[in-house]
């Protein structure tokens, strides 16, 4: 039998690509792949942002822009929602941050299977191309809403019912293949490739959040994959999985006997965990940002980790809270309302712990922390409205109103986005070796943070009035007072302002990349391993000849008696300057 070496002990030299193309295009380096993922995700995210601007213009000034027809509005809603949730947030948090941070934070040289990791990106790019292609196919992209509910998603009369929905489903299936290839890498790397001393319970929360989110993805995307295949078959070769007997435009269709509710179950079995696929990495990242910038250990580390795990598990048994009005067996409502409310407990624990971490901390109110605190606000806000919607009797009248739009934008739109901004500011110095401009960063934060409140707070009120979501215009409707129009105008002005303010952000990133001040390798005095690399930005292989050894958890901030107010994870216990820890 051959002797067994763990990955961390493997000292064989890495294969270093020599050509520019090998280094930056067909790269197998997790950091390059991460950047590729992030840039693609942001690029396609900007498309979604433009679409939201167009929708808002229509809502505030109905009919003012001639090319926004009712059909186009539906298509914008659908593409905006799908791109934001899947192609931007999922790809950016897991493909981007997951790829960049996992190996660095656990002290590995790369992902365990770099080749497949590279393929993951290229397949993701293909899915994005197929998705964007749907803007150019006959009939345009699908207008079925991001939930793609059949029968309407594939019956004539829905915009994009032909090619639009086909390209959408194909793109989703391709995306899932890409995600699986990446996800297998992230999960296996966390499990099997940690450096010496890096026990699971010493990993930074960021890694925990990304890890559990990856597992959720690997178990939840299958349901979407299956649903996509079945709907594709219904649409192309005339099976009837989801299609009941139905009369469409005066003609009976050839389908019969299928179950539209089945699709909803499959979709939401994926869809709810998906919320946590974007939330858990954000939870993890925000914990690390808060702890680092308030110079305190994260409050209740173990509790934080277990809360992530428990939320992950519970997220698989709450899906039907999206289906209270679907016509499913009403008794299910009891179960799903209960499980939904239970999930609020670990979530609330996390919020308390973030606040308690800040409590009496040595707070450095830098831009990353501003965004993290902004996240706490928006997340509490979105979480509380979630409690409303989790209860059947409250949800029924609020279903499909702007209250729901306000809720989910707060909780899974704005909150993860704020964390992503914070994370980019936080890690930018490590990734580029340069500092961003502080004034522009502050400006970006305040406009964005105040802006999103002006956008989404009124939406809750509109929802309470009964304004329905996914409506092209309200027209003359008795229960809608004239003031709704006024609110819509304010929302739109704020939305366009916030959208435009992102130019500040991009300008800051790009100009700092070329002209920013040289950054210190560890400007925030952070403890986790990614800040302890020998080079900034980290080079191929991350660690030079030897891997770091981990001696402590990631949260030794302001340890009494220590020389500095932080002790990096790779400083041995009892070292001079360290804390004399006797463990």
């Amino acid at each position, binding site marked *: 039998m*051959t002797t*067994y070496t*763990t*990955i*961390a002990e493997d000292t064989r030299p890495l294969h270093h690509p020599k050509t520019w193309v090998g280094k930056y295009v067909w790269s197998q380096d997790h950091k390059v792949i991460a950047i590729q993922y992030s840039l693609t995700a942001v690029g396609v995210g900007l498309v979604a942002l433009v679409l939201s601007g167009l929708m808002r213009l229509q809502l505030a000034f109905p009919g003012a822009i001639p090319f926004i027809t009712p059909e186009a509005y539906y298509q914008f809603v659908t593409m905006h929602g799908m791109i934001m949730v899947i192609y931007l947030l999922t790809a950016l948090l897991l493909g981007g941050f997951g790829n960049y941070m996992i190996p660095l934070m656990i002290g590995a040289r790369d992902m*365990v*299977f770099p080749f497949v990791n590279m393929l993951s990106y290229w397949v993701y790019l293909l899915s994005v191309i197929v998705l964007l292609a749907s803007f150019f196919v006959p009939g345009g992209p699908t207008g079925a809403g991001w939930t793609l509910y059949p029968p309407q998603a594939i019956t004539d009369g829905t915009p994009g019912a032909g090619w639009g929905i086909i390209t959408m489903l194909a793109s989703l299936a391709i995306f899932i293949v890409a995600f*699986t290839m990446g*996800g*297998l890498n992230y*999960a*296996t*790397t966390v*499990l*099997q*490739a*940690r*450096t*010496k*001393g*890096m*026990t*699971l*319970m*010493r990993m930074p929360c960021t890694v925990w959040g990304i890890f559990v989110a990856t597992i959720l993805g*690997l*178990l*939840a*995307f*299958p*349901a979407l*994959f*299956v*649903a996509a*295949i*079945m709907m594709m*078959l219904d649409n192309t*070769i*005339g*099976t*009837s*999985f989801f299609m009941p007997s139905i009369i469409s435009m005066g003609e009976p269709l*050839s389908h*019969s*006997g*299928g*179950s539209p509710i*089945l699709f909803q*179950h499959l979709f939401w*079995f994926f869809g709810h965990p998906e919320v946590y696929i974007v939330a858990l990495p954000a939870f993890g990242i925000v914990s690390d940002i808060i702890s680092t910038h308030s110079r305190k*250990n994260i409050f209740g*580390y*173990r509790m934080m980790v277990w809360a992530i795990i428990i939320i992950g598990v519970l997220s698989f048994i709450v899906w039907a809270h999206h289906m209270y009005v679907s016509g499913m067996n009403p008794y299910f409502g009891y179960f799903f309302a209960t499980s939904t409310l239970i999930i609020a407990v670990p979530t609330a624990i996390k919020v308390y712990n973030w606040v308690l971490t800040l409590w009496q901390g040595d707070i450095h109110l830098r831009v990353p922390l501003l965004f993290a605190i902004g996240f706490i606000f928006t997340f509490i806000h979105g979480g509380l409205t979630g409690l409303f919607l989790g209860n059947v009797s409250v949800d029924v009248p609020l279903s499909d109103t702007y209250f729901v739009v306000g809720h989910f934008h707060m909780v899974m739109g704005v909150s993860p986005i704020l964390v992503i901004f914070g994370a980019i500011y936080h890690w930018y110095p490590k990734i580029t070796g340069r500092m961003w401009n502080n004034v522009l960063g502050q400006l970006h934060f305040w406009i964005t943070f105040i802006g999103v409140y002006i956008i989404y707070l009124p939406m809750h009120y509109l929802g309470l009035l009964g304004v329905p979501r996914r409506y092209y215009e309200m027209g003359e409707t008795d229960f809608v007072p004239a003031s709704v129009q006024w609110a819509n105008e304010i929302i739109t002005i704020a939305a366009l302002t916030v959208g435009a303010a992102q130019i500040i952000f991009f300008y800051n990133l790009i100009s700092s990349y070329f002209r920013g001040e040289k950054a210190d390798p560890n400007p925030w005095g952070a403890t986790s391993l990614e800040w302890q690399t020998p080079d900034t930005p980290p080079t191929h292989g991350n660690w030079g000849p030897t891997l770091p050894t981990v001696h*402590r*958890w990631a949260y030794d901030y302001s*340890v009494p008696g220590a020389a500095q107010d932080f002790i990096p994870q790779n400083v041995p*216990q009892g070292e001079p300057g360290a*804390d004399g*820890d006797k*463990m």
Partner: protein
Amino acid sequence: MSNSPVTHTDHTAAPHSLESLVSDWSTDQEVFKKVQWGKAMMWIFLLSDTFIFSCFLTAYMTVRASTVVAWPNPSEVFALTLFGESIPLILIAIMTFVLISSSGTMAMAVNFAYRRNRKATGLLMLATAALGAMFVGMQAFEWTKLIQEGVRPWGNPWGAPQFGASFFMITGFHGFHVTCGVIYLTTIAIRVLNGVYERNGKYEVVEIAGLYWHFVDLVWVFIFAFFYLW
């Protein structure tokens, strides 16, 4: 120090509680000790794939339970007339037998791989792949027969249209897995025979391929039970 989590390398008591399970898992470097990463990765992939097949089967059961038209009787639909007699499920029985046997040859191949017996490993893997190919061949025959009898994804002569839809979709997806497996096993077998793994010491590749193959067999057992026997 109280704020560093305890490491558990100095455990003296025998592990017996939930807590020690947790600490075992969270110890140094690797969760699955002495498990090559490829194997861990294959297990995780199979877990994910299990969810895909579960969704397919659950969806099939849902449409079967909710359709208002009668479901065709599998014992009649899947009967073959041999020597003038109609024998129910005979083809499926043979297919199942072939596939299960291939798991046997795969297990033997893994065993020989442990003993570094290059030739026996390679040949047994090729035998496994051949049995797999046979299975796919018989499946093609079954599809052809059903199509000739008028079964289509959108309808069939005997009852609920979902019958053909689920049948072609699920057996097709499984058959796709078997086909991939045949290609995968053949590739690895050739590499084994060429001595690639002798040189780079990564013989566990055989075992990883074996995991995949056993999984595909196991899935078939469920499809068999839920589709043909129900």
